[in-house]
């Protein structure tokens, strides 16, 4: 990497937003280039001046109290509409009762389950990763490169495996957010079909067997064991995707309770 490219990307480097390969290239360049190393030092200095100096504004407790009561008022006013008057009360109550039953029943009927919400996020994330050309942060088919890359970025260590011989090539990984938490996304390729494998700790929920579903034309399979949740999404046909899942599960079992899955202590 030359000075021009380094100057272009150094802010991304300082912010930890570059992929592994680019970060290493910049580190290499900084070692040999005095001017860029100086720039790097100055950006670091500026950043610490911005974060050390308590520049954040704090809301006053008076304002917080005021805001709370304003929010409560709005909540109340939406809960009791103006047209409910005392003389309408008997009829209104009946109507309201019926309405509540309708809303509750309707809500139960229509509210997506937790898994549906996650499935939706998984599909969105998969689609986004394809659209933005941001499939991978670490481009590597070497699981020993992909795995360390996650260290320090996640509070758990995802199992990383390659199934090149079986036709599923590990091509990289990236960090993603599902259900409000950072998760590991591993990218495999089956021919031209990318497969996103999402992994995160299941936080004590019991192991489940495979469950397949279809969302927006993508096939999804989820399961959890060894303390991890797994979701696989791809435009690949279900049979081949299941084959991939079986490979993963067999490998996990073969390694006899994967030690890598043990969750690291949260910092």
């Amino acid at each position, binding site marked *: 990497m030359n000075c021009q490219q380094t100057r272009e990307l150094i*802010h991304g480097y300082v912010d930890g*937003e570059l992929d592994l390969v680019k970060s290493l290239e910049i580190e290499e360049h900084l070692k040999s280039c005095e001017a860029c190393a100086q720039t790097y030092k100055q950006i670091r200095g500026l950043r610490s001046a*911005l974060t050390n*100096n308590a*520049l*954040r*504004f704090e809301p006053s407790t008076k304002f*917080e109290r005021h805001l709370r009561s*304003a929010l409560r008022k709005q909540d109340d006013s939406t809960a009791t509409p103006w047209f409910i008057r005392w003389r309408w009360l008997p009829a209104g109550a009946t109507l309201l009762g019926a309405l509540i039953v309708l809303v509750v029943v309707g809500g139960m009927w229509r509210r997506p389950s937790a898994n549906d*919400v996650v499935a939706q996020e998984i599909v969105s994330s998969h689609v986004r990763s394809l659209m933005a050309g941001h499939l991978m942060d670490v481009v590597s088919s070497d699981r020993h490169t992909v795995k360390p890359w996650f260290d320090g970025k996640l509070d758990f260590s995802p199992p990383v495996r390659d199934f090149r011989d079986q036709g599923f090539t590990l091509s990289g990984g990236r960090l993603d957010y599902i259900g409000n938490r950072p998760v590991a996304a591993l990218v495999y390729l089956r021919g031209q079909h990318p497969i996103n494998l999402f992994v995160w700790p299941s936080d004590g929920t019991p192991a489940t067997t495979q469950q397949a579903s279809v969302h927006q034309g993508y096939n999804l399979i989820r399961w959890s064991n060894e303390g991890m949740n797994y979701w696989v999404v791809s435009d690949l046909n279900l049979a081949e995707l299941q084959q991939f899942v079986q490979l993963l599960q067999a490998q996990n079992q073969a390694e006899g309770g994967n030690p890598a899955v043990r969750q690291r202590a949260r910092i």
Partner: protein
Amino acid sequence: MQHLGAAYSLARWLVHNEDDAEDLVQEAYLRALKFFSGYYGGDSRAWLLTIVRNTCYTWLQKNRTFVTEPIDDNLEDAGLDFADPESLLLQQVDSQMVRQALQELPVEFREVVVLREMEGLSYKEIAVVADIPIGTVMSRLKRGRQRLHALLATRMGKEAKVELSANA
């Protein structure tokens, strides 16, 4: 109250004064409450900050304190590079000076710096809040930091000179 600190600080940095910031945060929270049904999971902080940010921008435009000339993201700021020969020990810069310099930045640069440095948002989250592509997040951060650095360098230079002449 969740995220109130982040919401208030952002508003205050965008509109500069306490009363307006409080009004705008309240407006944003009421709006958030009203449209809560439109929120399906995801990052609630980024979602809330987006509403705060948009509320503030609407206010800025109405009150004409907004710099009407939008910045050109394809431009580079010539002559503003970090590698100037005088090395700055910015850690020692006094916070009032940093605050002042940051307040003078155009709002588009100020908001990405505030979101990144004070709230610790990722580029992806900033892209959502400020409604710009991730590449623009990086280029605005770069230009914002360059300008900030230049402003501080000039002021610290002046201060050093004043001190020198006082000592002389």
